């Protein structure tokens, strides 16, 4: 999946049935592309001080990616700019050939995970305006995600409420790694606002919150960060469940994005077993943890778990539920999942339809 062996003409991989792609990453062609949406004081601030995140690198990620911008080498737009920065090329390379009826945009490298919360809020609001201006208003298949200053619950909630009823957006986006585990109360205003305006929260892998990315410190390699996203996501989800977020916000729905889904059953079993032992510590929970997960959590598929024996994949999905998976490609990133290849033979038409399109339409309220 890292090296492209041969060029594939887009037309030859088209699939007839419409699909939803629940994880698309739109990029800015240049850093200053955001400036029209950002007050002047922040232009100067960014140029002088940078983003000042919870990690040390002024430019680029702490773990160098496998490819430039973690993206496919064939995804550079002909007009220049990084992969994912051109709507027309995204239409040509992704939306048209794969018949994407719904594409959910998850902007990364926004104002999330910054230490200066005023800057974080300003950049996030700008990114939200930019999604409308550059993407969703230009192609009705694309829907945006409201990004928020994740460490400042009140400002985040205000940004969410500002977008209430705006059908350019179908979810609120958070990242998995924050200053604290996501169930902590500093984040509750975000959940309250999302429930209030009726949007799910997407939790995408990544982010920096100042914690070492393993419970034993910083690992050495990019592969450890990538595989480790599933561990960070599991812990973040355990926190959400154990803090009682779904008791307090019973209509809240959440999507676990790009962190795998294979771990969902075993995490639920482990939570249940230990809840049975230690429930006196968490009396605010009225149900077993796996029941909250079953009712409140959806999962995007990419990168698909890849067992040696494909029947194991079917058993795994049955433990989770065919109604809970949302197909995603992760375009334009290098570990793109090709829609026609992710599911082995033997899936019923109804399950395929749910997996590729209907689950997403229902969750995101797209008719």
């Amino acid at each position: 999946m890292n090296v492209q062996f041969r060029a594939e003409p887009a037309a030859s991989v088209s699939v007839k049935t419409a699909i939803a792609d629940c994880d698309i990453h739109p990029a800015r062609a240049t850093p200053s592309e955001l400036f029209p949406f950002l007050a002047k004081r922040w232009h100067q601030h960014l140029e002088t001080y940078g983003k000042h995140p919870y990690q040390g690198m002024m430019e680029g990620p702490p773990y160098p990616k496998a490819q430039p911008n973690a993206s496919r080498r064939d995804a550079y737009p002909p007009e220049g700019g990084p992969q994912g920065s051109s709507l027309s090329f995204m239409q040509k390379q992704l939306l048209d050939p794969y018949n994407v009826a719904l594409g959910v945009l998850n902007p990364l490298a926004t104002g999330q995970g910054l230490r200066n919360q005023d800057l974080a809020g300003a950049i996030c609001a700008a990114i939200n305006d930019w999604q409308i201006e550059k993407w969703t208003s230009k192609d009705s298949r694309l829907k945006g995600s409201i990004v928020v200053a994740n460490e400042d619950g009140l400002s985040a909630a205000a940004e969410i409420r500002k977008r209430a009823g705006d059908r350019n957006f179908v979810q609120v986006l958070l990242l998995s790694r924050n200053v604290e585990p996501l169930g902590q109360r500093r984040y509750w205003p975000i959940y309250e606002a999302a429930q209030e305006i009726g949007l799910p929260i997407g939790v995408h892998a990544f982010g920096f919150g100042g914690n070492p990315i393993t419970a034993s410190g910083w690992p050495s390699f990019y592969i450890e960060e990538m595989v480790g996203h599933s561990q960070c996501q599991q812990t973040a989800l355990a926190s959400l469940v154990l803090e009682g977020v779904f008791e307090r916000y019973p209509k809240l729905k959440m999507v676990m994005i790009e962190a795998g889904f294979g771990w969902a059953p075993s995490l639920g079993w482990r939570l249940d077993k230990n809840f049975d032992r230690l429930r006196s510590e968490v009396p605010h929970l009225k149900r077993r943890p796996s029941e909250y997960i079953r009712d409140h959590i959806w999962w995007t598929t990419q990168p698909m778990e890849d067992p040696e024996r494909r029947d194991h994949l079917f058993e795994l999905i049955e433990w989770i539920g065919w109604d809970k998976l949302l197909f995603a490609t992760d375009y334009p990133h290098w570990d793109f999942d090709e829609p026609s290849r992710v599911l082995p033979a033997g899936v019923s038409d109804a399950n395929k339809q749910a997996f590729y399109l209907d689950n997403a339409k229902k969750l995101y309220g797209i008719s």
Partner: protein
Amino acid sequence: MTSPIAGGVDCDLHPAVPHLTSLLPYMNDYWRDQVTTRGMVDLISQSYPTNSPISARPDWRPAQGKPGSSLADMQKQALDPFRVSFGICNPLYGVQMVFSEDMQDAFCRALNDWLVKEWLDKDARLRGSIVIPTQSVEKSVAEIERCAKDKRFVQVLMLVMGDMPLGKRAYWPIYAAAERLGLPIGIHAGSAYHNPPTSVGWGSYHVEDYVAQAQAFQTQMTSLIVEGVFARHPNLKMVMLESGFTWLPSYLWRLHKFWRGVRMETPWVDRAPLEIVRSNIRFSLQPVDAPPDPTTLNRLFDHMQSDELLLFSTDYPHWQFDGEEVLPAGISPDLVRKIMIDNPHATYTRLKQSVQA
């Protein structure tokens, strides 16, 4: 229920140090004085609060004192009823939390000597794990070499959450010593609390910390595999203790997929992660984090694609199962024999050796 068979090996027993003062006879004058003069308190880790339900089965909880602190209780509650021929002692005393490597070293030496005198000398079935001061690799190697002369030490014990990921090259002299001396590295649940106990920070609850042990095991396995520990030390065995194992198949599917994608980053990983696990990594049986129905568990065993990975354990005195139900329902007699006898002996080769040096 599935009945245990006689002659098994219990790979995870936890004898408890009654109090830090119990180790004073095993310290030199300087450290005895330090402990006493400075009024040091007992080293109880947050991973296992004494009165937490997980720390002791209700019917294994003594009227007074710490669960697991009495040999007679361990004999009566674990060694005798499960008819084991060997029981491996993994002390979970909180010596890893100490920040000074000198103090950690003194406490580890005392703990290992205490284990010999108070436990191994008193029941011929018992074997021990060498607890090491991981903040100093040099001192850890010295302690391994010192203790390994006693063949009743069959393993080196580390915690799953320490200062650095376990695959880091700084730790490799520990692995070289263990491989050379025929000792597997046991990695047990628990944290030194030198880092937040999850990869996303500090949670609120004890149950949260306990659930998160499984994620810590996952990141450590990634670290050990991709840093190349098993390429350098192909004969080294590692045992994940009290780790759970139902997460293993899907974890490996993900690791395998990324290894195929970015193996250029770690070209020394000369075998697929799946193969490395099958040849070098083992898991203790308890806790079995699975639904009680045998169908699901048997599907999971099938997903693991090997019957050599699990090693029998009671996790005594921790509360992981009730009554005699240490083995999950519905597993075959063949698998019972492998889990209880064959797999532990294949892992802990010192069990077959004479204890006379």
